[in-house]
């Protein structure tokens, strides 16, 4: 090209970042990589390798080890051996290592960025300006959390050996999101990068060695899904953290059900991008660029559904098309491209087939007039209009540079459309009206809501999903809890369940006054604020601790569960202010105290008299405790390094199923439901099986305490049956399980259906203020939504 010609045309030319240093590094390793276990490189046990390819050229970069069972086992054993030393090092010691890692990432920032773009296909601008700086920031931030662990998380300790499986869209950044908090909290890790993009993880292993990280603290095993499965199935892994597709997440949820292992899942999305008629439309257009043409749209939180006010749609569409015409697709290492290469042919085919389906279904497709490079895996930016919510492209996560545009009439309809998805990862809201923005943000079912911005991330802010986008948060203080457990949990033996001898045929022990028989009491189900008969028409006998029948309770079935869930959804409780909720809880305590004698007498059938009195007293106190917390479990504002307010809003989980404990029939029940109610959840409680009458007695208290209908629903009956219907109900958002039997496996397996968050709360001493109450309950009763609000006029 001659200068004189370019002077006339003012075209863009190639502006390549050199790949030479990355190639030198690959060559130095002979373009073949083993696994990194126990601080050293090892050949894979089975001797199997696969190719990793540069998606920008479709050429081989290197051979990567396919780790097999022996490799994974060696890695887990190395991590186990390293665990005690790493934990004992203490927060400050670990902080020094994390700080060193952060520094090393910065020192090698460009090398990592180039390697990332080579392996993944993302534009060098993104790896250089976004991915790698965020990686360094994540390690810095978590060096701080390591330092502060003893101060900020007293009573918690490391979970143990963590298995981590990460995706290919942000290879090193996802590694950082996984490894930094895990190490900070004293865990050791076995991490598997995605098979398409292993290289930066392997380079990271070298950095760990360079900073002298104790061997075995970080182990990197490469391979495809088979290797991932080996990690998930390994019996000595204490926690699994996974980022990837919802389908695989569901398999992992099912596979780990009942294993007692912690699990965090960050899954797919179909995030709405809502444009109101008073938005700055030119900025909206750039927002769309950042939302769906960032990383080729291969972003779990990509704003892939534009919802625009009907009267604004035409203008926005025109502006978008004009902007798309100016986007540049090409060599990921070129410093002047907007969109790089799709990671692999299989992904390219998936995008292509969904786009064709979109056209077949009648939507209008628009692509720029220019064409993509022939070599490598490229797909042009694509905009669909005239899209119906029922279309596949409006429902399915495409994971490519493809966006659909739909219209709404009112802001209520915008919220409905936005929430009309199984996913709930992120949302973007564009309006210049702060009233509207702050009205809409809390109504969106999404873990992250960006106002007038999109795809903003920071280590100080938790990221994670609602609904089938997974559970758990990464980043911020909220993310740390994925990598710790209460210290008491390993020390405390499960309290023994009250010894119940089985059914003994005997006459009722209760006696009425004088010679008269007692007035028969009918314990019904409590649904929607009413005492209702069970659908089945059956009852179950309740026995005292000597096995004598003392009462009957209703035998609930799936229809009762269904009705209870419906009632819970219809309740006015979540709309009450925190102050009002506190008042109701105090009132519950007041009315419980009024019935103290009666409840002590009732409890006397199941526990010793002194214990019964103590239980009632503590139940009253516990209601006071959560009444007090109702307006004090406050949200945070994260200190993110932008001119933005990052609100970590604590929101109720929604409709919570609570399977109540058998021990401490009253205190256990109250301790389980009160935190959920205090924070605005509505509850479907399945009463303890041994002494459900305390739960049914409680509804009398509820009835007199201004608790709105549907806030608390109580079902009695055969636990396993009821739990299966509740855990398998797709309109239940969370489920807590307190009994210590083998029901947990069923709960976690069935919960995989809608990815409801489960808390297998485990055995605990209910009278103990740490085990029986407190922050752990409050945390599980809330979901954190981070709302990013930029400011500045």
């Amino acid at each position, binding site marked *: *090209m*001659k*200068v*004189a*010609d*370019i*002077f006339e*045309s*003012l*075209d*863009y*030319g*190639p*502006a390549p970042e050199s790949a030479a240093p990355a190639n030198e590094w690959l060559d130095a390793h002979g373009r073949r990589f083993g696994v990194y276990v126990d601080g050293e490189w090892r050949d894979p046990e089975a001797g199997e390798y696969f190719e990793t390819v540069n998606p920008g050229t479709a050429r081989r970069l290197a051979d990567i080890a396919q780790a097999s069972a022996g490799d994974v086992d060696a890695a887990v054993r190395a991590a186990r051996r390293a665990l005690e030393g790493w934990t004992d090092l203490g927060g400050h010691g670990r902080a020094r290592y994390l700080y060193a890692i952060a520094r090393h990432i910065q020192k090698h920032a460009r090398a990592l960025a180039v390697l990332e773009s080579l392996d993944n296909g993302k534009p060098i*601008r993104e790896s250089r*300006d976004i991915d790698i700086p965020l990686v360094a920031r994540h390690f810095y931030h978590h060096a701080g959390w390591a330092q502060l662990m003893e101060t900020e998380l007293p009573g918690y300790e490391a979970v143990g050996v963590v298995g981590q499986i990460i995706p290919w869209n942000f290879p090193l950044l996802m590694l950082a999101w996984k490894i930094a908090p895990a190490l900070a909290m004293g865990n050791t890790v076995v991490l598997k990068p995605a098979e398409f993009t292993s290289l930066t993880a392997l380079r990271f292993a070298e950095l760990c060695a360079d900073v002298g990280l104790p061997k075995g603290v970080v182990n990197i095993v490469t391979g495809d899904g088979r290797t991932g499965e080996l990690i998930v199935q390994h019996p000595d892994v204490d926690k699994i953290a996974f980022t990837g597709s919802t389908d695989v997440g569901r398999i992992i949820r099912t596979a780990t059900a009942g294993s007692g292992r912690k699990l965090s899942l960050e899954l797919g999305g179909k995030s709405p991008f809502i444009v109101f008629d*008073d*938005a*700055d*439309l*030119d*900025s909206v257009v*750039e*927002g769309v660029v*950042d939302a769906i043409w960032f990383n080729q749209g291969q972003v779990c939180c990509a704003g892939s559904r534009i919802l625009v006010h009907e009267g604004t749609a035409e203008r926005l569409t025109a502006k978008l*098309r*004009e902007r798309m*015409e*100016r*986007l*540049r*697709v*090409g*060599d990921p290492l*070129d*410093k*002047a*491209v*907007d969109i790089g290469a799709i990671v692999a042919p299989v992904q390219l085919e998936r995008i292509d087939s969904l786009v064709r389906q979109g056209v077949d279904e009648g939507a209008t497709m628009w692509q*720029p*007039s*220019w*064409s*993509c*490079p022939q070599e490598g895996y490229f797909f042009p930016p694509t905009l669909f209009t005239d899209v119906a919510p029922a279309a596949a492209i409006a429902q399915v996560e495409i994971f490519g540079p493809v966006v659909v545009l739909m219209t709404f009439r009112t802001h209520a309809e915008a919220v409905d459309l936005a929430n009309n998805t199984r996913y709930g990862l992120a949302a973007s809201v564009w309006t*210049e009206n702060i009233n509207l923005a702050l009205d809409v943000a809390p109504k969106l079912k999404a873990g992250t809501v960006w106002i*007038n*911005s999109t795809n903003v991330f920071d280590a100080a802010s938790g990221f994670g999903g609602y609904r089938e986008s997974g559970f758990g948060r990464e980043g911020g203080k909220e993310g740390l809890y994925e990598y710790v457990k209460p210290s008491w949990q390993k020390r405390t033996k499960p309290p023994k369940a009250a010894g119940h001898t089985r059914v003994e045929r005997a006459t009722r022990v209760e006696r009425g006054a004088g010679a008269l028989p007692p007035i028969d009491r009918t314990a019904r189900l409590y649904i929607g604020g009413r005492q209702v008969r069970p659908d089945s028409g059956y009852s179950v006998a309740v026995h005292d601790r000597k096995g004598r029948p003392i009462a009957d309770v209703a035998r609930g079935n799936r229809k009762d569960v269904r009705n209870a869930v419906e009632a819970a959804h219809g309740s006015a409780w979540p709309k009450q202010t925190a102050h009002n909720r506190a008042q109701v809880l105090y009132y519950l305590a007041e009315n419980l105290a009024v019935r103290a004698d009666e409840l002590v007498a009732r409890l006397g059938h199941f526990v010793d008299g002194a214990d019964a009195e103590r239980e009632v007293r503590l139940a009253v106190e516990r209601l006071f405790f959560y009444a007090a917390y109702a307006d004090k479990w406050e949200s945070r504002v994260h200190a993110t390094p932008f*001119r*933005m307010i990052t609100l970590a809003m604590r929101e109720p989980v929604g409709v919570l199923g609570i399977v109540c404990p058998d021990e401490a029939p009253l205190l256990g029940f109250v301790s389980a439901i009160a935190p959920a109610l205090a924070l605005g959840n509505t509850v479907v409680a399945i009463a303890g099986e041994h002494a459900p009458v305390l739960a049914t007695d409680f509804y009398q208290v509820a009835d007199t305490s201004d608790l709105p209908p549907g806030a608390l629903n109580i079902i009695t009956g055969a636990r396993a049956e009821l739990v299966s219907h509740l855990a398998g109900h797709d309109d239940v958002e969370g489920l807590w399980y307190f009994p210590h039997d083998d029901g947990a496996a069923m709960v976690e397996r069935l919960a995989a259906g809608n990815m409801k968050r489960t808390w297998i709360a485990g055995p605990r001493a209910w009278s103990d203020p740490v085990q029986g109450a407190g922050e752990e309950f409050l945390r599980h009763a809330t979901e954190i939504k981070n709302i990013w609000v*930029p*400011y*500045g*006029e």
Partner: protein
Amino acid sequence: MITTQAKAAPTGVGHVGLQRNPGFPLELDWVREIRVNRSAVERRAATIGTRRSVKKEWQAAWLLRAVTLMDLTTLSGDDTPGYVRRLCAKAMRPIRQDVLEALGARDLPIRTAAVCVYHQLVAPAVAALRGSGIPVAAVSTGFPAGLSPFPQRIEEIRASVDAGAEEIDVVVTRGHVLTGAWEALYDEVRAFREACGAAHIKVILGTGELGTLRNVARASMVAMMAGADFIKTSTGKEAVNAMLPTGLVMCRMIREYRERTGHIVGFKPAGGIRAAKQALEWMLLMKDELGTPWLTPRLFRFGASSLLGDIERQLEHHVTGRYSAGYRHPIA
């Protein structure tokens, strides 16, 4: 490798028969509807220089183009006819001949777009540039504050036009913008435009004194409706000079005005543009926001006094591979 050449420029502006912006009746609704989200604008502006890059021959060619987009400017109290004559000589031969030859650009029309001076220096500049085709631009209307009596400001324009200035850079009453007196602003610019006659009018908004980007956008729209040929950021005398976010907002308004009226308006960032790299960023902004046709002197100017020196050094570096020194290039 990169095949992003547009088959048809979507906002194609023909070079031929480009009409002056005749202005448009004041539409207050258009002004009131304007929304500018500062944070989002800044975010976009921050990536203009990172999403695009021109290297090697492309960089050299773009920098040569930058020279031709320059209003070579001197606006100092100590300007004299002699200095202005030297400046005009530099405008006509801005790049060393041997550098141009090495670039294969000997036959390209490399000269600055205009020379920009105060009224007193218009006549010597016109004389010095006679036959070169380079127009003289005069800053006017009580530059830089624009607060002298209105009749005198009109008179100043006429005097400069009479003296041979073909372009007039006027300043607006910032107070009109700050108080939302859009009719007053419209009438003022309209009167300036009439006084200019055939001379092109560049309307300086003094963006550093307008408080908000929304004010910048609204003032841009009113100035265009009042008939501005160019809208221009700054006088170079305000505390805050031309900034990319401000420029981005003004470009978006130019696009908006064109969508609404079909009329095409030029853009001139001025003040603080000293480095070749900055010049490239502004050009990238124009190309990506408005299209390549805006990278012509008819629609885009840099107001700059020291930018040329840096471009000269960069061009020589491109030719020799060695970093250049200022003294190797003739000064004005």
